[in-house]
């Protein structure tokens, strides 16, 4: 028996859910395959979404019509606004999510989509057939599909390590996808091995919160989603405590039992989410490390002990956790572990996340070498949209570095040979002031609507908002304030700013002390609306910087216009340095701009390449 679908999405994690939603919204009959129906949108690590850079990604996916923002808003346990005083480029929301609620809501949503069929099953083969792909499950069941998104996360040949113990496994004891990894490798896909890890989960009632610092959520005016009415839930606190010399001593004494230090793990781990054993080894001068105790959900007693990720043997984990104040009587529910898994070597990916030489097959998420739910969701929606465009016979959708963190992420993935799981950071973005979390809809919703991921109703709301922003900006430009006037006096009283000369409200707003909310309060109380005001204020206060970034973006665009033919032969270009030739031949950048971002390609190499391309173009 064979069944036909337009698209199959392999894996129902954070990338797979977004991809399936995108193709379904674009009108394609979508099959969502998951190895375990109970674990759709599962969060195997921190129950946390957002933060600097990551929060921007959530907003961007939301602006395109994706799911992670809405779902987090609905399932949050607490929200915090980070970096509030450090400037608009780095302001960020971070949510603690109720893991179980998150999964349940996501599953319910997907089940309601008429074009999505969810099916539990382990894929073991993906074969090209005449004009389509044939998917085979371990049970022998076959599907015929026209396009595929592979989003297998850490499941592909997953291997879990706890101390000296290691066994094939997906995250948190799930069934791994061994056969599919072997199949893809046999078909010529090149993999590398990455490693990630997670701390033990502990029982809430075994902890002593009295000796920890409480971290309550913030009272916020809005959540992540541009579309969902913000409905704050009763905030649940996190707790902060610290390791100490005793903790470190136990870890140091048992290092020989850690798979990473005894050579059992060959995969490369992350530096921004290190195991406690790495922290102790790499930063011996630190007397303590932070430990955040985070609730996993409202309907569970399980708590996450962020900062104590470890793959030491269970009894050692038990020993060192007990040295942390408040955790003396800890009851471990599940031990921490490290997991190794297959990652697609990036040179096999194009900017649309298609696998080279596999027409219609895209890959997304942790399989591509990222870490984080947000990074996975971002790639998922892009791979989904591009699978849809492939089916329509249209040009792929590629976001540039100046348009979105999504663009930065994918561009980095394919031009930089990351040797650790990739995490988005604001310091990776050259256009930080343009890629703010307050304007993601202004940057991307137009696209989302074009691909039908944003409904007409949502789009109308968006247009109305855009219109109001324009009106506010012109109001501020056109209205002036005169020294000695009543308005000037009111301003003096309210914010202590003296108006020295006649100026527009816009000029006034450029003064650091003046906030747009203060101007509305004084002059136009009917104008107040929080989210828009953030956009308006940032636009005016950072106008000069935004112009600078726009100029830079124009320069970049010029470099991006210079295309390099897909089959370009770098061996014929004389003078390219050895390393540049190797890297370029391997990563096959689509444009000169991308070539320039490949490490090892020097400006001299780029010049040589440019001259050569210009010459061969003239011929």
């Amino acid at each position, binding site marked *: 028996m064979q069944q036909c679908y337009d698209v199959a999405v392999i894996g129902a994690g954070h990338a797979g859910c977004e991809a399936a939603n995108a193709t379904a919204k674009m009108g394609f009959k979508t099959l969502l395959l998951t190895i375990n129906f109970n674990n759709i949108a599962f969060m195997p690590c921190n129950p946390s979404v957002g933060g*600097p850079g990551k929060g921007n990604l959530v907003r961007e996916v939301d602006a395109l019509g994706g799911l992670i923002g809405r779902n987090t808003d609905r399932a949050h346990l607490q929200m915090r606004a980070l970096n509030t005083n450090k400037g*608009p*480029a780095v302001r960020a929301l971070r949510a603690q999510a109720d893991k179980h609620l998150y999964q349940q809501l996501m599953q319910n949503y997907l089940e309601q989509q008429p074009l999505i069929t969810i099916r539990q099953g382990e894929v073991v083969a993906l074969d090209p057939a005449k004009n389509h792909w044939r998917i085979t499950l371990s049970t022998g069941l076959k599907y015929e599909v026209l396009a595929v998104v592979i989003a297998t996360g850490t499941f592909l040949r997953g291997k879990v390590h706890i101390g000296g113990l290691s066994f094939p496994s997906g995250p948190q004891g799930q069934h791994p996808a061994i056969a599919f990894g072997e199949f893809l490798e046999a078909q010529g896909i090149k993999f590398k091995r990455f490693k990630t890890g997670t701390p033990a989960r502990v029982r809430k009632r075994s902890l002593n919160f009295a000796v920890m610092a409480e971290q309550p959520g913030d009272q916020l005016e809005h959540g992540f989603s541009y579309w969902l009415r913000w409905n704050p839930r009763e905030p649940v606190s996190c707790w902060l405590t610290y390791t100490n010399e005793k903790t470190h001593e136990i870890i140091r004494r048992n290092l020989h039992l850690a798979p990473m230090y005894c050579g059992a793990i060959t995969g490369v781990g992350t530096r921004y989410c290190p195991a406690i054993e790495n922290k102790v080894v790499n930063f011996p001068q630190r007397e303590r490390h*932070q430990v955040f105790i985070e609730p996993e959900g409202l309907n569970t007693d399980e708590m996450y002990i962020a900062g104590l990720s470890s793959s030491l043997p269970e009894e050692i984990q038990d020993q060192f956790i007990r040295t942390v104040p408040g955790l003396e009587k800890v009851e471990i529910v599940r031990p921490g572990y490290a997991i190794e898994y297959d990652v697609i070597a990036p040179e096999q990916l194009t900017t649309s996340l298609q696998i080279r030489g596999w027409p219609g097959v895209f890959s997304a998420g942790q399989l591509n070498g990222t870490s984080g739910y947000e990074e996975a969701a971002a790639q998922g929606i892009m791979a989904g949209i591009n699978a849809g465009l492939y089916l329509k016979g249209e040009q792929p959708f590629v976001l540039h570095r100046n348009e979105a963190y999504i663009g930065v992420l994918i561009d980095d993935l394919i031009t930089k040979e990351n040797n650790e799981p990739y995490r988005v950071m*604001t310091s990776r973005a050259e256009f*930080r002031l343009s890629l703010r979390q307050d304007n993601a809809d202004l940057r991307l919703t137009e696209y989302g609507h074009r691909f039908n991921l944003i409904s007409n109703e949502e789009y109308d709301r968006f247009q109305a908002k855009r219109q109001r922003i324009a009106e506010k900006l012109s109001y501020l430009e056109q209205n002036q304030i005169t020294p000695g006037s009543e308005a000037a006096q009111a301003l003096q009283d309210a914010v202590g700013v003296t108006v020295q000369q006649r100026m527009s409200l816009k000029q006034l707003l450029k003064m*650091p002390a003046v906030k747009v909310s203060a101007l509305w309060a004084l002059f136009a109380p009917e104008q107040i609306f929080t989210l828009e005001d953030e956009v308006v204020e940032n636009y005016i206060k950072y106008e000069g910087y935004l112009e600078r970034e726009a100029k830079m973006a124009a320069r970049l665009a010029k470099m991006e216009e210079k295309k390099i033919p897909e089959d370009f032969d770098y061996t014929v270009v004389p003078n390219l340095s050895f390393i540049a030739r190797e890297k370029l031949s391997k990563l096959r950048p689509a444009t000169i701009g991308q070539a320039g971002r490949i490490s090892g390609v*020097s400006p001299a190499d780029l*010049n*040589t390449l440019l001259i050569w391309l210009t010459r061969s173009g003239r011929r």
Partner: protein
Amino acid sequence: MKITETIAAIATPPGEGGIGIIRISGDEALMVGRKVLRHLSGKPIASWPERKVRLGYVVTAAGEIVDEVIYFYFKKNRSYTGEDVLEIQGHGGYQNLKKIMTIIFEAGARLAEPGEFTKRAFLNGRLDLAQAEAVIDLIRARTDLAQQVAMKQLQGTLSTVIKEQENRLLALLVPIEAALDFPEDEISTPERASALEEVRKVRLTLEEILAQADQGIILRDAATVVIVGRPNVGKSSLLNQLLGEERAIVTPIPGTTRDFVSEVIDLEGVPVRLIDTAGIRPIEDPVEKVGVEKARHLMEEADLIITLFDAATPLTQEDYALIKFLQEKNPLVVLNKTDLPVKLSVETLKAAFPQSKLRSISALQGEGVQELKGVIRAELIGAGGREEQPVLVTKVRHKEALTEAVEVLIQVEQGIEEQGSEDLIAVNLRAALEALGRITGRSVAEEIIEEIFSQFCIGK
């Protein structure tokens, strides 16, 4: 494959010499050779063995023998430029070589631009970019001092100094970036006061380098000095005096000789292009309008204007027009013919040009000329001797990059002083690093991230 234009140039230094070498490069080098060379028997040359010395005649199109020469042929991919190259060694002497060149041009080659052989060598993979740039700079370095600067830059003096500044900025930026990206980690950022101090130090260092930049740029590109004055005021005599014994050092590089009004001299190590505006007078005569426009343009472009007056004649209408024209241009004023009875006093000129330096000379007698040279040099590159001047920046794009870095660092300082937000401080520090990276070729984006992880224990 597109046929590249075939180029030719005299490869040996000008002046009298035993032999003179002419190089021809391009797809049609052999075709040119067939036209201009003959066997000693007078027959056309049929075979062109590679890298073999042959004897022959250079002949005109009419078959008239011009010179007896030896020639070599270098085949494509095995020559300096990577193209077909024909090298002809004729008898030295400018007139003879010029005549051979004329015949070669008639046979279809064109005069090579300065550095064009090297450019082709680069394009054809015979040199890498860094080598090519260095060779071109060395070719273009017109005098000893300029050559020293080019050598020094090759050795990386500028890069070394700039890299130190980059490191200092990077050290400041990394903790700031780390704290922005990981707000929930324990990261200590630098105190505002010490950060301010550090940024200021870097900015001052860059400004110091910039202050010497104009001098460096002049050394590479030759400063332009325009001499203006009404006819018979002694412009030619002054020009000859300035050229004087330096004339032998003048390097008439092919391509520059087409500029009739200019001569390049070595003024105590500073390459100076002297432009005599003979026949161009800045007066409002319709007939001379074009000339006036040209003079204006030249003066606007000039690094220094020398205006000449005749001490033996009271100011004429034309002189007054010139004085009016030169107001605000701050020329170097020279009173010539002081050997004759004085009709025009230094005081009169001082009143006319209160801001300007003024020197008296007798171009005819050579009096005051040596002193004038010193003044010209000082006006162009400052008064210091060459030893104590660390000459660093010799490229306009380097100067632009430095200027940009200084500008954004000033913004960083303001940001720190005015308690501005950290994201802007980070953005501006990066902009400064990006600008400096255009000089050193260093891209710090990856380094920042590497440093964040190596310096700070980050992550839950």
